[in-house]
């Protein structure tokens, strides 16, 4: 309760968004319908010259494998009024070895400055998501992740040990707002929507495990299951479709508000996704995606976290100034649409990728690969 009082502005924002969503119930479709007169005239003229129809405001997701973006992209599509989608996503991310800037750093180099070095880290997430078309404008979203983290370490004495943390992560609630859509047979379909959301601090930021320092030791920042802060999740998504080709662009932000109960705030995160997909048959499409991420260092510090052993620094993962970075991943994916069963539309998708550029405020563990698999049911 104290926390909620502390974040009155967030509460007000969330309630405001909620009320806006409900008020949009009787509104016209996309938010920018009717204010794009000039664009529409120009499009209509071009369409008329070609003798083809121009359709404004169609956000319908045809039942095709690439009607949903690559599975690692969240909030890539909207739903029609009354339509409901349940999704289960599995994500596995593996980090191996350390990096400082754009250069790899060996374990022995890290150990020259720290008592302990991280060697590898595996993060797995089971994400349960819901999407619901509230009306012709707003699609509501919710996502609850279950997170499992495991990190291998080695200390100066050569002793290897592993720490683990697991539990529910930060729950995300959001609304996707249809902005504008237009299509003609020759230029295809072009759709824009706004992403908005809030991440609630439901993930544990006080995980503990046994280490050589002692039993039930507080684990450092990367092992925590949530940010501990209320985070805003603004964004903008554009998707296009022409015959068997689809493409998309999405810019997303994670804006942390205030600081958490442990006295720190994770860095803001900015992401850009751009992808293209080709439909090979009615039931299968493949995709290529570029994913740029940039995230900042931690502001403040967790006063309860041990950072030194005598005069020596303990481990880089406990240093709030060694958390930031930038990374560009390239990912390949496959989307499969199964035949409709009991009126349900089933999508199964996988995606995997590697970083092609990593610039980390290190030493920090560098990403090796990520893998996504998902099952989505639209009803």
């Amino acid at each position, binding site marked *: 309760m104290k926390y909620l009082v502390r974040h009155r502005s967030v509460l007000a924002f969330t309630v405001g968004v909620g009320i806006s969503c409900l008020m949009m119930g009787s509104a*016209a*479709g996309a938010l920018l*319908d*009717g204010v794009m007169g000039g664009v*529409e005239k120009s499009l*209509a003229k071009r*369409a*008329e010259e070609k003798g083809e*129809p*121009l*359709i*404004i*405001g*169609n*956000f*319908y997701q*045809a*039942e095709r494998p690439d009607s949903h973006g690559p599975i690692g992209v969240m909030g890539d599509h909207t739903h*029609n*009024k*009354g*339509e409901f989608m349940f999704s289960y996503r599995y994500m596995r991310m593996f980090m191996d070895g350390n990096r400082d800037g754009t250069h790899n750093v060996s374990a022995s180099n890290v150990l020259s400055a720290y008592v302990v070095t991280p060697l590898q880290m595996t993060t797995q997430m089971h994400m349960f998501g819901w999407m619901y078309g509230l009306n*012709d404008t707003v699609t509501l979203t919710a996502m609850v992740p279950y997170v499992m983290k495991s990190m291998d370490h080695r200390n100066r004495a050569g002793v290897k040990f592993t720490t683990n943390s697991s539990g529910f992560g930060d729950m995300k609630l959001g609304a996707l707002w249809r902005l504008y*859509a237009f299509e003609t047979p020759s230029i295809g379909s072009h759709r824009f929507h706004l992403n908005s959301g809030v991440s609630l601090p439901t993930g544990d930021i006080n995980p503990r495990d046994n280490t050589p320092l002692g039993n039930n030791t507080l684990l450092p920042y990367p092992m925590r299951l949530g940010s501990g802060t209320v985070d805003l999740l603004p964004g903008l998504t554009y998707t296009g479709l022409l015959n068997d080709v689809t493409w998309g662009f999405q810019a997303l932000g994670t804006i942390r508000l205030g600081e958490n109960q442990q006295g720190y705030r994770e860095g803001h995160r900015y992401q850009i996704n751009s992808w293209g997909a080709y439909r090979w048959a*009615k039931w299968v499409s493949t995709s290529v995606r570029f994913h740029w991420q940039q995230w900042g260092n931690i502001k403040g510090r967790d006063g309860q976290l041990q950072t030194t052993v005598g005069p020596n620094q303990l481990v880089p993962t406990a240093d709030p100034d060694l958390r930031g970075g930038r990374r560009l991943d390239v990912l390949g994916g496959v989307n499969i649409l199964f035949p*409709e069963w009991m*009126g349900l539309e089933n999508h199964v998708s996988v995606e995997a990728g590697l970083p092609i550029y990593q610039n980390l405020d290190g030493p920090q563990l560098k990403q090796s690969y990520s893998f996504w698999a998902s099952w989505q049911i639209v009803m």
Partner: protein
Amino acid sequence: MRNVSVVAGFCCLGLLFVCASQGNAYEIQPVNQGGGIQGQVFFAGTPPAPLVVEVDKGPEVCGKERQLVKVETQNGWLSGAVILVEGIQTGKPFPVQAFSGKLPGEGEFRYQGGERLGLQVKTKGCNFGPFTGVVAVEDPVIFENQDSIKHTLHTFASMDSKGIMLRTIHNQDLHPMDSMARTFEVDKLRGSRVVRITCNRHDFMQNWLYVVDHPYFAISDQDGRFAIHQIPPGRYTVLAWHPILGEQRQDVHIASGGQVTLEFRFSRAQSE
């Protein structure tokens, strides 16, 4: 003082809007010595070939292949043309009428009549009903799916009479054996006089509706015939509209108890 003027200005504007909106409302009143219009609609030339569509979703209900006949003629007479007497603001109640869709399928447009148009769209056998019909602004339309498969209703306002520029109004699943009411609101139609209905899952399910605000309309039958009764005496413009062939207008004078015969002639050239 300045604020008072601003408030007064807004009040006046509000009143103007109220008056303007009330001015357009149709009022049911007894018609004395009403006249009538009857006639036929003719089509010259060869109608466009039916669109043949291979059924992808639910062929067990819709059939494996379907045709969409956009211009339906018989011996040169055009059926499905909407005939409308324009500009009538008072007169008879809305009649009870029903029009069936072209086979296969048993889709139907049923107009409940009375004080409002009361359109009910029955979908059966992957058929929304006849290719053309009418719809009234702000009058709820009941869409009823009697099929055992889902249809995805997609309605558009056409910014022109032939559907060159379309704007989505509703886009929603119509579940098996379910029904829903949807209204074509003024702010969504934005002055459009033509509405298109499609099913996103079945391309051959397409219908066109002309927006009316009174009951003085008719739809030409298989012999191209139409008749409109109980028209208050006066001078009017009569519209004949077909979504593929376009529109034509003729001026008429309806005398007390008089009958006027009209003939509309469409040709392929008008559709191109």
